[in-house]
Every structure is written in structure tokens, then in C-alpha cells.
């Protein structure tokens, strides 16, 4: 155990050295003023730090704000922290629950390198700190390295998710251009991987993880948690520890793309959702592996009534689509998050595009229900975690209830209130 902890400490220290070296070559955006104060980026340890105006004035002497100071979360940020760019929808894997419905043919009118570089210029001008590049399988794109270089030159840190099933050799050669690379691995065994994805790609994903980890320390795994792999969470953390990975990121299954058809069969049960946080923290502690969860898990965290102040200090938020993050489709259409449909077209019929983010960001009604959580219905309206959770996942709500404004139907509190309602006598 002590030897494991020592290894983790060495990896952390050497990872910090890697991050500092990378930042010297291409310094990332350091600070962005906000209504509440500012957001400051640290390279080692990697963090975005939200500070009030008094603190911001010490960092940026002479800084001024037009509007009165607000609390963090009272109004949308001046720009997203990160943009999730689906730079292609080409992928030959054909996973059962693929949230983008990716295929070998890709999407119509996919952008190329020049269009995505233009988008990065616009995102940098708006003040975005990070981009997460995904697909489809973006590692198969011959210009991925050039795009990552362009992001760095703009002061944006590019991060990447890959299946590890395509383009591995080329990706290993450019791995140092990315901040963090995670490989999708939806099970600790070939059988579970196959149960979730519809085919056994475990050995190839494992080979990709080993090759990338040999080239870079900031490599982790993304795990879409389903009812089939929930019982394997501990084994997944053990795998991450054995491969000396920097993190495990756990993702809730979303009814989007082909995932809409597979949702009923793959989504976790209510009992699994209630057991999620204790199970994850126990596994993270046992194997000394850092754990991240996706924003849609916030209702399942709130179920255990953690200290609200602590959650706020950790920037734990539920749906932050159209606020902390935005997405972009392969043809450049802007979305609140990667799972969401593009906002309705404007009067001229045009849909907002990611390379014109700034023009849409402050438009009245921008991002629709994604920014409408303050008007949440019960039981969210009376929930003490609403300001953090923001009503849970809009995409799951839209799929199950037909309204993106509805409470997250998989939230334990929503389920419990529903049970209470059904027990009321009919008058």
C-alpha cells in the first residue's frame, strides 16, 4: 500500500513537471474577469480557481467591472470554461449506445481543419480555457495534431477522448500536445466491455491505454456506467491503479444518438444510482485513484446530503450546459452540451454556430431550458441543492418526460416525491 502511494506521489510530481514544461512552450490563458470576480488558471496543480473581486484586483491591478458584483452562479459566466467539439462523427466501432450515433460515413457537411481553427480563434477571443475534442473517433483525423497545435497557440488547452480503436500510432506521436487524454473503457473485462458496447474491444482499448501512458502521464479512462458494469466499478479502479492512470471519469448513460434506443436496457437502476457515490468513493479510496464524475450525476451526489458549501467550493454543479460548457456538432452548430439538439433557428433561419459563439451567448433566451433552472418545478424548486444541481440532466428529462425543463426523472428525490404523489388518495 505504501509503495502504491509512493508511486502515485511520484506520478503526480512528474505529471506536474510535464504540465509546467508544456505551459512554458505555449502559455495558456491565465485569467478571465467575471461578474463575481475572476477565474484564474493554474498549471500545476491543474485547476481553474474562482476568486472574488477583491482577490482579482490583487492579481490584475486596475481591473474594473461595469456591473455590480454577483455571487458565483447567480448569472451565466461571460463565456464557457470549456467547449466540447465533436470534430467528426466518423467512427467504425458501431457501439450500441453511441451518444452521437457515429458511423463510418460520418455526418453531413463535417467541418475540416480550417473551419475548426476558425472556431478555436473565436473561442479564444471569447475567453474559453479548454476544449475537449471528441467524435466519432477524432484520433483517426490526419489533422488532429495541427488542430491541437492551433489550440495551444490560441492559449486554449486541448484535451481528448478516444476509444483507442483507431489512429493509435498517430495519436501516441502527438500525445504531448494535449492536456489530458482519456480512453473510453466501459468494463474491466472483455465480457463486460462487450455487454455495454456490443462488441469486444477491450484488448485494443487496453493496448491504447498502455501505449498512451508510456508516452504521457495525464492519461485516464472514461467509463460510461451502465447496469452491466456497475458491479465492476471497484475492478475498474483497480485496473486504473495497475496502469498508473491519472484519473477515472464516470459518465452517466444518456438517451442520445443510438443511446436513445439502448437507454432502457443500459441505464442504471434507481438502486444503483442511490449506491453510486458510496461505491465510487470506496473504490477511489481503496485504490488511491482520483475520480471525476460527469455533471449529470449531481442529483445522485445530492441524495447523500453532502455539505453544500463543500460542493460549491469544489465547483460541483449539475447541468451547466450553455453556461460553464458548450458543445459543437461536426458541422459547427452550437449546442448547450454534446447531447443536446442545437437551439432553434433565429428569425433568418440560421442556427447559431460555434465560430460565432460571442454573438449568441448574450442573446435573449439563449440556450433555452438549459439556462431556465431558476424557474424549476417541484420537487427541484424546494430542493436545497437546486443552485448547485440545477435540476439534473436536461437531456434525460427531455427523453423521459418530453420536456427539457422537467426535473431529472432519475434523481432519487424526484422518484421519492413521485412515489408520495402516487400514494395520495384520488378525490
Amino acid at each position, binding site marked *: 500500500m505504501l509503495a502504491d502511494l509512493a508511486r502515485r506521489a511520484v506520478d503526480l510530481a512528474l505529471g506536474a513537471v510535464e504540465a509546467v514544461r508544456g505551459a512554458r512552450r505555449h502559455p495558456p*490563458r491565465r485569467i478571465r474577469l467575471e461578474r463575481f470576480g475572476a477565474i484564474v488558471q493554474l498549471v500545476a496543480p491543474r485547476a481553474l480557481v*474562482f476568486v472574488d473581486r477583491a482577490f482579482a484586483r*490583487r492579481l490584475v491591478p486596475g*481591473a474594473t467591472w461595469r456591473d455590480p458584483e454577483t455571487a458565483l452562479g447567480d448569472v451565466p459566466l461571460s463565456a464557457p470554461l470549456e467547449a466540447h*467539439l465533436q470534430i467528426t462523427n466518423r467512427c467504425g466501432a458501431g457501439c450500441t449506445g453511441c451518444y452521437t450515433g457515429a458511423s463510418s460515413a460520418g455526418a453531413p457537411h463535417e467541418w475540416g481543419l480550417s473551419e475548426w481553427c476558425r472556431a478555436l480563434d473565436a473561442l479564444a477571443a471569447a475567453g474559453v480555457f479548454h476544449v475537449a475534442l471528441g467524435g466519432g473517433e477524432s484520433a483517426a483525423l490526419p489533422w488532429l495534431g495541427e488542430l491541437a497545435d492551433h489550440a495551444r497557440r490560441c492559449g486554449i488547452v486541448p484535451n481528448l477522448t478516444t476509444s483507442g480503436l483507431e489512429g493509435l500510432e498517430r495519436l501516441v506521436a502527438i500525445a504531448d500536445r494535449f492536456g489530458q487524454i482519456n480512453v473510453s473503457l466501459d468494463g474491466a473485462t472483455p465480457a463486460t466491455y462487450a455487454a455495454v458496447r456490443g462488441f469486444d474491444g477491450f484488448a485494443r482499448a487496453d493496448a491504447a491505454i498502455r501505449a498512451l501512458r508510456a508516452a504521457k502521464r*495525464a492519461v485516464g479512462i472514461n467509463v460510461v456506467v451502465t447496469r452491466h458494469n456497475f458491479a465492476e466499478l471497484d475492478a475498474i479502479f483497480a485496473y486504473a491503479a495497475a496502469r498508473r492512470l491519472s484519473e477515472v471519469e464516470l459518465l452517466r448513460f444518456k438517451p442520445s444518438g443510438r443511446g436513445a434506443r439502448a437507454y432502457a436496457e443500459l441505464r442504471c437502476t434507481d438502486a444503483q444510482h442511490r449506491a453510486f457515490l458510496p461505491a465510487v468513493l470506496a473504490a477511489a479510496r481503496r485504490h488511491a485513484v482520483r475520480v471525476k464524475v460527469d455533471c449529470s450525476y449531481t442529483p445522485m451526489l445530492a441524495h447523500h446530503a453532502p455539505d453544500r458549501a463543500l460542493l460549491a467550493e*469544489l465547483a460541483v454543479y449539475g447541468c451547466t450546459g450553455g453556461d460553464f460548457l458548450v458543445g459543437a456538432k461536426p458541422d459547427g452548430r452550437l449546442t448547450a452540451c454534446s447531447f443536446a439538439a442545437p437551439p432553434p433557428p433565429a428569425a433568418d433561419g440560421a442556427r447559431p454556430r460555434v465560430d460565432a459563439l460571442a454573438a449568441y451567448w448574450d442573446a435573449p433566451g439563449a440556450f433555452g431550458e438549459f439556462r431556465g433552472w431558476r424557474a424549476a418545478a417541484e420537487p427541484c424548486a424546494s430542493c436545497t441543492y437546486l443552485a448547485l444541481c440545477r435540476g439534473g440532466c436536461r437531456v434525460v428529462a427531455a427523453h423521459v418526460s418530453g420536456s427539457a425543463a422537467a426535473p431529472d426523472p432519475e434523481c432519487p428525490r424526484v422518484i421519492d416525491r413521485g412515489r408520495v404523489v402516487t400514494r395520495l388518495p384520488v378525490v
Partner: protein
Amino acid sequence: MPRGRILAIKWGMNPNSSSLGIDVTFLLAGATALAIATPVIGALLRWRRRPRTPDAG
């Protein structure tokens, strides 16, 4: 000049192109660990070289 305060810290970077990754590792150690880490982060921020010009407004 008032020292100001840190409101929140979002740890790490999010490579996942489908959601905002939230680091919940600190929930293991609780508020005490964050109470120790926050002043260290504050000191790091103040120690770093000031930029020549603000990046944004």
C-alpha cells in the same frame, strides 16, 4: 487592500467531450482537506508573476 477570497476550485482538466467532469476526490477527505488546500492555492496565485495586461474584461 482587502485580500479577497477563493470562491471555488475546479480541479483538473476535462477531456470528456460530453460533460463537465467534476473531481469528487475531495469528498473522501472532506472539508478539512480543502480548507488546507485552499490557502496553498491562494498563495500560489499571489506568488505567480503578474501578467503585463489583463486577458479579458
